[in-house]
């Protein structure tokens, strides 16, 4: 793990919901700072207590975290999707009066906060602008909770498809296209589509939609450029992906599928972290002698359960260890909800075989 941290400029932590992306990202960042680097960790929606103990808040600029055997520097920041998206819109717009219009569009409000890849987009946007600033040796990116890790990588494409597929053209001022015969033809075709859509949704909705697309059309150039820049950063040799997964058959299978997708996308998957893989007591190898038959029974059941998992893990690691370095982290005794928990986990990451 040490060499991975030393040789990377960007680490992207991906995985399905709740597996420990935020926790592991923070620990990797701390490790980097302990190795003397200037590190920034960009977190998405961390637990309130983690925020409090690290002293960070949504939308704030990066805050420096002190102490903890840090020989470099550690900065942390929480990504505020709404704010990042709004900022992007403001930068991408050439006309200020349009900015106001779009920020007030009801559909925009929905899009920018909750839907269809905007969180993913803003995480990448924030990553890129932090990278561009040149202030950090290493940036660790935590990613939003997606059902599937790969949604994260597809989101910007989905957003960009809006432009490349020319949806915005539909809603463009019709006069602009009249000079061109073919465009005119297309226009009359799309009119039918719009009429059908209007029959399904109503004119009120269509008005908002048209307004929305007319206003965002001007982002096209910026968005495409940004998507291109972000892509080059993500496939660069100094960027690595860390896939985090929990430990059961279903999730391991999912992890196998993710790693394939990550590789197919041309990204570098360097480590696969199986989080909360086993409880501490299983390692001690003691033979329990308890007077309580209930405790004894539970012990046997659990031992057997983890034994079977061990077997499925062996099969998994035989299939996977060509793909990436595999690390297993223990189930901690406490929630990792503050900096001391992060420190402890960092220690396990460093020591993990």
């Amino acid at each position, binding site marked *: 793990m040490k060499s991975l941290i030393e040789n990377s400029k960007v680490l992207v932590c991906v995985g399905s*919901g709740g597996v420990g992306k935020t926790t592991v990202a923070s620990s990797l960042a701390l490790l980097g700072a302990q190795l003397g680097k200037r590190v920034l960790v960009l977190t998405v929606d961390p637990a309130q207590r983690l925020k409090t103990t690290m002293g960070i808040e949504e939308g704030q600029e990066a805050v420096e975290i002190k102490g903890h055997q840090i020989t470099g520097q550690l900065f942390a920041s929480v990504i505020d999707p709404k704010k990042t998206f709004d900022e992007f819109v403001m930068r991408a717009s050439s006309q200020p009066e349009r900015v106001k219009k779009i920020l007030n569009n009801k559909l925009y409000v929905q899009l920018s906060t909750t*839907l*269809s890849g905007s969180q993913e987009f803003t995480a990448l946007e924030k990553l890129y602008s932090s990278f561009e600033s040149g202030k950090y040796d290493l940036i660790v990116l935590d990613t939003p909770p997606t*059902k599937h890790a790969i949604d994260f990588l597809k989101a910007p494409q989905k957003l960009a498809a809006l432009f490349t597929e020319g949806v915005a053209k539909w809603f463009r001022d019709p006069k602009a296209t009249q000079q061109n015969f073919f465009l005119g033809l297309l226009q009359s075709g799309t009119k039918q589509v719009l009429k059908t859509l209007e029959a399904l949704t109503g*004119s009120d909705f269509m008005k908002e939609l048209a307004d929305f697309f007319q206003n965002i059309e001007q982002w096209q150039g910026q968005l495409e450029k940004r998507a291109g820049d972000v892509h080059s950063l993500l496939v660069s040799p100094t960027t690595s992906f860390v896939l985090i997964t929990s430990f059961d058959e279903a999730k391991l299978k999912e992890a196998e599928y993710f790693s394939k997708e990550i590789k197919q996308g041309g990204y570098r998957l360097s480590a696969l972290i199986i989080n909360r893989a086993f409880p501490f007591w299983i390692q001690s190898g003691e033979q329990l002698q308890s007077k309580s038959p209930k405790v004894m029974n*539970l012990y046997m059941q659990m031992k057997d359960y983890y034994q079977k998992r061990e077997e499925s893990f062996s099969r998994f690691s035989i299939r996977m260890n060509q793909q990436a370095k595999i690390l297993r982290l223990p189930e901690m*005794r406490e929630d990792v909800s503050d900096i001391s928990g992060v420190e402890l986990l960092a220690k396990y990451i460093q020591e993990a075989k």
Partner: protein
Amino acid sequence: MIKSFQQEIIFVTGKGGVGKSAVAAGIALKRSKEGKKTLLVELGYQSFYTDYFAEQLKAPVAFSPVRVTDNLDVALWSGPECLREYAIYLLKSESIYKLFFENSVSKALINVAPALPELAITGKITSGPRHVGPPLRYDVIVVDAFATGHFLALLKAPQGMAEAIQFGPMGDQSRSIDKVLKDSNQCKYFIVSLPEELPTAESLELAEGIEKTLGAKPVIVMNKMLPVEVTPHEGASDFEKFLTNSQQRQNQALSLLGGRPLQKISFCFQNDSWKVVESISQEINL
């Protein structure tokens, strides 16, 4: 016999990885064993249950329901597919639909148009009581829904749309969907949680979010509870210390809940997924 039957709609949500899919399946299995025709629905583009129920299923899970066991079917619904079905139902013609929607431009639009997929999904889920769209002949629909934030977005979409769009079919549909979601005789909400401090705090936040959005009172399901009581004693083994510690954490988490409706599900130490689901179905109270 014409009887206005009351379809029961059960939503299961919670933080990522806490056991939503397993609990949703357990609830569905319980209802099916009571003799109710039950549909278990997963949302999105990729099926989880295809692998999870590999032993039971004869075909991969798809938009059209496939059989898991007696009285229990499972289906996978994505936004665009729900929208497609709804559009064909309204247009009464598949070919018109194809003409207008099966091109890359329309597809791109449907994929990103704000709130459209969310509306289509909630529309389909509530299509029974609203008598809109192709009939869903089930007594019970159990939805293995999105995780926390995304779930709230799903619930808020109809209300948000209803407010944004005053007139036209879109506004009307949105209002009728919202009404069903808010009807506590019709829809029930379960939040799966783990008996640990942080997940519990998050579940409470979600419960408040659901209450605020819908006025519904969700039930919190504490999943993976460790069953045995131990008393701390001298010379306790690592395992016993682990149990004592887990128990303390569990009790602490439970104490955060106050007087909220609560269900407990034990950790089932089986690596076979069907056994886990069966054990949940026996424990859960509906």
